[in-house]
């Protein structure tokens, strides 16, 4: 692999790669995203390769392990180009058949096609599937089409052309102007305009400056950053190099969660590849611009997604935030100017440079520009990663793209923004999703997690879940967060345990309001949001827990009882045998009963009953 010494070198390399690929008749794209990976997708690559080589067809067919296709609910996904035939839930056993019929004979394997749940029709082409048809995939477009661990593939798709454009003909100030024009706001949660941040960092005094990528995607339920960093690392790295050029940085850092080992691996790999081509390191593309990027792993602390805590942790200290009276763009890592943006923000940069800030600003709403990737998960049919323009109504995301709620259940709420966000209830289903509208609804954008909840989800339990999370993750530095979260958790736990007292709800509200005022960092300030927003929209559920000692969603164990339906029980004895506590009594072929005092409400009996005779009351 030879070093590229100029923009011309890069262009000729691109032409050469594309020429070499002309002989390829079909490309088999195998999804290597988080969802498909866990479903066994990785084993498909060698299976296809073996099958093709056995039939002497390797040369004109290319097998690529791509980034995430987004439609994780249907994984492992295989797509065959050029027709873009979409096969879902592909297992190793089906590979031979696909090669034989689709690759070599151009036939369809009908039972692997996607079936539209509404019309019952089989859909052949990937982008005709409603899940994709409703999206506007821009940032996330190449992830899923590419070969995620091949720099040549990235270059062949126009990769690093934005970097070439910047280093060969744009002044740093012009790059910043373009970013400001685009209106891109930080995708990590805060929503601060990226161009403005870059400008402050460029103006800040200091010989050494840092460009940093926040890949500490701590919000449970959000995984778009993982998918981007694993699936298209060069897009993120290219964005960082452009950012480094604009602010005048010489060193870059990626801070990635240790829970994402593949993201760390792919990112390190991408850096090595970029370096060997001279796209990173010293004298980038022969222009005299130097930048080095390092990958650091986090230690599993949610608070380290906060900028000052992240930097403290990089300095070898515990990840405690500090007050932000001095911004990190002036004094950040090692007290030097540091520009931190998250993965999705960096991934947007090459597109903005290539297509122009004006183009990006033409998408979205007045104050929220561009598109956003959401991870739509939980009680939803088409769970996965979805990219839509800012301002897309929630209804479109949940029903048109997401395919609605499984089992005909009622949509109850969507939780956005992770532990810092809140719940948006069903009555706001037509809310256009952008930074402002979510905030007005008492939640926030966060990093884009959307956890869909149905009627079987207890909102008090959800609040307890987030408080448990936050009590564990609060770093303990400031009292409002350390003590406040703990007290709130005690109250909510009491409610779920059937020991709620009148006045508890009011006390939660009071505590929440003071924490918002007094906590030191973003984590503490937003910690009460899950509680306050659920109280705001679902007060009746809280009241049912406190005053009636009932859990309407039948989740909180202390407030429910398992009952055997006399008419349905056949007396088979299965539940009696399975019950680990010996709480079920009854003679053979006679109706059984559950002893409430012994029952621990584990639900094993309900799972084991073949007649649906056991219900929760």
């Amino acid at each position: 692999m030879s070093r590229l010494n100029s923009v011309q070198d890069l262009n000729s390399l691109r032409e050469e790669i594309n020429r070499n690929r002309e002989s390829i008749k079909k490309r088999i794209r195998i999804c290597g995203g988080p969802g498909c990976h866990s479903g066994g997708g990785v084993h498909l690559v060698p299976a296809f390769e073996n099958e093709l080589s056995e039939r002497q067809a390797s040369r004109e067919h290319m097998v690529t392990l791509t980034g995430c296709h987004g439609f994780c609910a249907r994984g492992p996904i295989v797509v065959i180009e050029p027709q873009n035939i979409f096969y879902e839930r592909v297992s190793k056993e089906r590979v031979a058949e696909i090669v034989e019929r689709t690759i070599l004979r151009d036939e369809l394997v009908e039972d692997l096609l996607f079936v539209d749940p509404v019309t019952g029709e089989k859909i052949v082409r990937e982008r005709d599937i409603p899940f994709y048809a409703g999206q506007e995939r821009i940032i996330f477009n190449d992830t899923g089409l590419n070969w995620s661990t091949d720099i040549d593939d990235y270059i062949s798709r126009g990769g690093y052309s934005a970097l070439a454009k910047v280093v060969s003909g744009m002044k740093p100030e012009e790059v910043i102007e373009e970013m400001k024009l685009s209106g891109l706001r930080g995708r990590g949660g805060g929503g601060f305009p990226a161009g403005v941040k870059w400008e402050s960092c460029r103006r800040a005094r200091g010989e050494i400056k840092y460009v940093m990528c926040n890949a500490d995607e701590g919000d449970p339920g959000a995984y778009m950053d993982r998918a981007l960093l694993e699936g298209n690392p060069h897009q993120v790295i290219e964005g960082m190099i452009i950012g480094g050029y604009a602010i005048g940085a010489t060193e870059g850092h990626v801070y990635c969660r240790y829970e994402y080992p593949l993201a760390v691996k792919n990112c390190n790999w991408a850096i090595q590849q970029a370096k060997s081509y001279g796209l990173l390191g010293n004298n980038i593309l022969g222009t005299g611009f130097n930048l080095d990027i390092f990958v650091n792993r986090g230690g599993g602390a949610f608070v380290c997604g906060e900028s000052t805590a992240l930097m403290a942790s990089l300095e070898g200290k515990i990840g405690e935030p500090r007050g932000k009276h001095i911004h990190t763009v002036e004094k950040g890592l090692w007290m030097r100017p540091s520009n931190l943006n998250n993965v999705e923000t960096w991934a947007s940069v090459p597109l903005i440079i290539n297509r122009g800030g004006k183009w990006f600003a033409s998408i979205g709403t007045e104050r929220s520009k561009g598109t956003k990737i959401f991870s739509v998960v939980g009680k939803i049919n088409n769970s996965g990663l979805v990219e839509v323009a800012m301002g897309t109504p929630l209804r479109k995301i949940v029903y048109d793209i997401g395919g609605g709620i499984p089992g005909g259940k009622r949509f109850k709420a969507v939780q956005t923004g992770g532990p810092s966000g809140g719940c948006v209830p069903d009555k706001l289903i037509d809310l256009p999703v952008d930074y402002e509208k979510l905030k007005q609804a008492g939640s926030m954008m966060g990093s884009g997690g959307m956890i869909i909840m149905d009627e079987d989800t207890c909102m008090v339990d959800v609040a307890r879940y987030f408080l448990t999370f936050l009590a564990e993750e609060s770093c303990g530095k400031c009292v409002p967060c350390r003590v406040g979260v703990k007290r709130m958790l005690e109250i909510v736990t009491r409610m779920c345990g059937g020991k709620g007292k009148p006045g508890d709800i009011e006390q939660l509200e009071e505590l929440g309001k003071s924490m918002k005022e007094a906590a030191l960092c973003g984590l503490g300030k937003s910690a009460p949001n899950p509680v306050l927003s659920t109280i705001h929209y679902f007060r009746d559920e809280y009241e049912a827990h406190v005053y009636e000692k009932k859990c309407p969603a039948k989740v909180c164990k202390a407030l429910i009882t398992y009952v055997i339906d006399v008419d349905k029980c056949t007396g088979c004895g299965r539940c009696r045998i399975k019950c680990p506590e010996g709480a079920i009594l009854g003679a053979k072929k006679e109706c059984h009963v559950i002893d409430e005092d012994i029952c621990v409400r584990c639900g094993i009996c309900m799972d084991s009953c073949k007649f649906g005779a056991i219900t929760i009351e």
Partner: protein
Amino acid sequence: MEFNLQDVDAIIDHWGPKPASLLQIMLDINHQYHYLPKESIQRVAQRLSMPVSQVYSVASFFKVFSLKPRGRVIMHVCTGTACHVKGGPRIIERLEQELNLKAGETSEDLFITLETVNCVGACAAAPVVVVGEATHSEMTPSKTSALVKQLKEEEA
């Protein structure tokens, strides 16, 4: 794995004995031994010229580190929001019952450690359980029992 000073030194040399490398060094040691042996903390402090208290503070702050030996098999149950609403808590309960351990504990014979993790980013496959490098998706209490049985058989 037996504690070995040379291995720890090799890890330190790989990252460079400087404060900025502390977290990376400790992650590698923790990965190698499945926990942070006391001697390794002392060695890191000595080589990086920092007080043992600073190394210890980092060791006790981050969730990934363990100061006690952990099992040969480490089982992570995801407690992310998507896993939670899709029945994650029932998976943990079942595992606690099957393994006779509480989350965070290790079996006496050092066979298995049961831990929870905030989110592994496989939310579409919720609820998930991660064992080593394998992610088990769409778990149910009965699939969980089967997994434990399989792991026990592999161990034997």
